[in-house]
């Protein structure tokens, strides 16, 4: 538990601040629209759903501003580099950018639901009061003219009793953009579920570009000024506190109170999203620029189990252990970029990735490289990204567990340790490294070529942990996993079980990498 707090306190704090801001903005906007005199007459028709809709709108603006930032991976790399004085634990939080992106997306979905439901009630209220003929305050307010000559100071957007809410929705900018944005959002969410993302990445990747419609729609959503409050001038002349009760006499010549006049809001969403949109455009331009830099493929190795190894060179490329790159192959697909962990060590004079056939793009890539007599396809590389897995070097004893293609980050680490030993690097604390590579076929240690024998088959973790605990009774042991969730659960349990209660004796710390 203590280990978890030490590693995650910043995430918890960050999420608490984000959630707190959401709550604050919601409550603040809600109270403003619920209590302010400016909206007194609007509330007479709509009730509390006005405040609900505006509060969720503000939260939508806030979260739409945040959603683009975690996916600017070059910006995050820049932050990571400039904050090198910060502790690694802090910088590692930048690796959870996609988790934050998903959380913000869920919040957007929630507020979209609140916003739409509130506006459905609002439109229904407007429609009823437009059709009401009982001479109530609501019906008089609704009758205020849309005629531009009389100042255009209307309140009810439904101009005539025959107009349906559907007509108003689809002929107003707010309604139309709202529908388009919501459909884009729903399509983005359904194609981004874990199952679809992992099984059919292209569906997710292309559909997610519908965010362009979402952002554009959000920018112009408020142009129509449908949300209306009383003008300053009108409030001075006929304040609602004085005049609301005497609404039947507004048109009398000797009345102190005149008809109230209303104006709409200028749109404010664009102010929230302008900066992130510019940053994101810069990010895409930067990705394009980096992709145009020449990548030289120095070696291609086809391993068993349909694993392709590519060794490459690029001018100015420098990496650290455990980082990953995004790869694009224009001859297979112009727009798709796929992430791969680097399997080479920084000490080597090339960088390499191992690609397993796991879908359309990877299978096409492997097939393209298998053709021995045609030219090698051009590859574009963006990166490297991610916080370096330097943690491994801080532990005296490190246990690295990789399942399937999850062995790739550890290949880089193991090779780097080998090189560090070769150069007698004194910063290296690690004296002993055990690597369990779980492969499904009966094969070979294809990655590292080290003479250390790797165990085969599924280990019995209890045995392994107790052996390590007895042979290193006073050490701090770091356990690193790159693999499925089920394995993480059993390893975490073993770490707890075999860590001694005495802090001077053997302690197991569990670290999980997920790509």
């Amino acid at each position: 538990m203590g280990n978890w707090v030490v590693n995650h306190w910043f995430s918890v704090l960050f999420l608490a601040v984000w959630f707190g801001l959401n709550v604050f903005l919601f409550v603040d906007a809600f109270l403003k629209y619920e209590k302010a005199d400016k909206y007194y007459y609007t509330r007479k028709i709509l009730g509390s759903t006005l405040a609900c809709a505006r509060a969720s709108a503000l939260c939508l603006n806030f979260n739409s501003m945040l959603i683009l930032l975690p996916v600017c991976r070059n910006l995050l790399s820049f932050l990571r580099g400039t904050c090198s004085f910060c502790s690694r634990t802090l910088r590692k939080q930048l690796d959870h950018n996609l988790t934050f992106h998903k959380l913000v997306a869920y919040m957007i979905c929630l507020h979209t639901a609140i916003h739409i439901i509130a506006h459905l009630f609002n439109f229904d209220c407007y429609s009823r009061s437009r059709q009401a003929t009982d001479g109530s305050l609501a019906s008089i307010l609704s009758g205020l003219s849309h005629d531009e000559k009389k100042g255009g100071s209307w309140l009810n957007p439904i101009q005539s009793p025959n107009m349906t809410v559907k007509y108003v929705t689809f002929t107003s900018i707010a309604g139309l953009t709202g529908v388009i944005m919501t459909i884009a959002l729903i399509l983005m969410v359904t194609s981004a579920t874990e199952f679809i993302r992992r099984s059919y990445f292209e569906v997710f990747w292309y559909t997610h570009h519908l965010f362009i419609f979402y952002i554009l729609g959000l920018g112009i959503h408020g142009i129509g000024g449908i949300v209306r409050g009383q003008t300053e001038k009108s409030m001075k002349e006929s304040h609602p506190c004085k005049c609301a009760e005497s609404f039947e006499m507004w048109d009398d010549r000797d009345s102190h109170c005149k008809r109230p006049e209303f104006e709409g809001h200028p749109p404010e969403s664009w102010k929230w999203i302008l900066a992130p949109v510019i940053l994101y455009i810069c990010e895409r331009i930067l990705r394009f620029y980096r992709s145009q830099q020449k990548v030289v493929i120095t070696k291609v190795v086809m391993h068993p189990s349909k694993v392709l190894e590519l060794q490459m060179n690029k001018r100015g490329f420098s990496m650290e252990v455990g980082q990953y790159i995004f790869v694009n192959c224009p001859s297979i697909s112009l727009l798709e970029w796929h992430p791969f962990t680097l399997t080479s060590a920084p000490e080597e004079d090339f960088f390499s990735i191992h690609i397993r056939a796991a879908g359309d793009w990877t299978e096409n890539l492997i097939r393209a490289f298998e053709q021995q007599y045609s030219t090698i396809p051009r590859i574009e590389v963006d990166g490297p990204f991610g916080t370096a897995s330097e943690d491994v070097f801080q532990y005296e004893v490190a246990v690295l567990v990789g399942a399937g293609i999850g062995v790739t980050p550890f290949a880089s680490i193991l090779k780097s340790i080998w090189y560090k030993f070769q150069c007698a690097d004194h910063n290296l604390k690690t004296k002993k490294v055990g690597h369990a590579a779980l492969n499904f076929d009966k094969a070979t240690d294809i990655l590292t070529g080290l003479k250390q024998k790797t165990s085969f088959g599924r280990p019995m973790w209890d045995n392994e942990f107790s052996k390590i605990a007895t042979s290193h009774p006073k050490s701090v042991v770091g356990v690193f996993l790159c693999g499925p969730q089920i394995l993480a659960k059993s390893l975490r349990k073993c770490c707890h079980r075999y860590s001694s209660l005495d802090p001077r004796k053997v302690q197991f710390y569990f670290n999980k990498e997920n790509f």
Partner: protein
Amino acid sequence: MGQIEWAMWANEQALASGLILITGGIVATAGRFTQWYFGAYSIVAGVFVCLLEYPRGKRKKGSTMERCGQKYMTAVVKLFGPLTRNYYIRAVLHLLLSVPAGFLLATILGTACLAIASGIYLLAAVRGEQWTPIEPKPRERPQVGGTIKQPPSNPPPRPPAEARKKPSEEAAAAEGPSAGPQTNPIPVTDEIV
């Protein structure tokens, strides 16, 4: 995009549409909007769509993640045979179900989403996909230590098992790791369980 099974995405979209129809229907009925009876229809249609779409079909390639507790609905959906297996029928069904909800603003979003799901199902049907139920596998008792085999007796680089039988063509195709056998800078001990 050769291997994409569109039906999987259509299924997610249809499930989401069902939930949106239910929500819109509840709002319209609870708020007693004009023509709220379309809202009541929308709730029923939404529930039906959710129940039909809850059991995920089996992927042609690779393993399929089941939804929690879907085996009960799988049994029911399986009973209808070709009516539920065929995606043309599903596409038409969803399109027809979505139309009445289009009369009400509160449920029109559900209409749009279900119509899109219907379109994706049509695409899936054209490509010859069909719904196959995920059958429960008999649980094998995990044998402790059963997967542990003897490690190979020769040091790396090791060609794969097939190459040891056919050295001529396999060895060329499956090149081992880059360098030759490497000398280790520190003594290496075997820890075989």
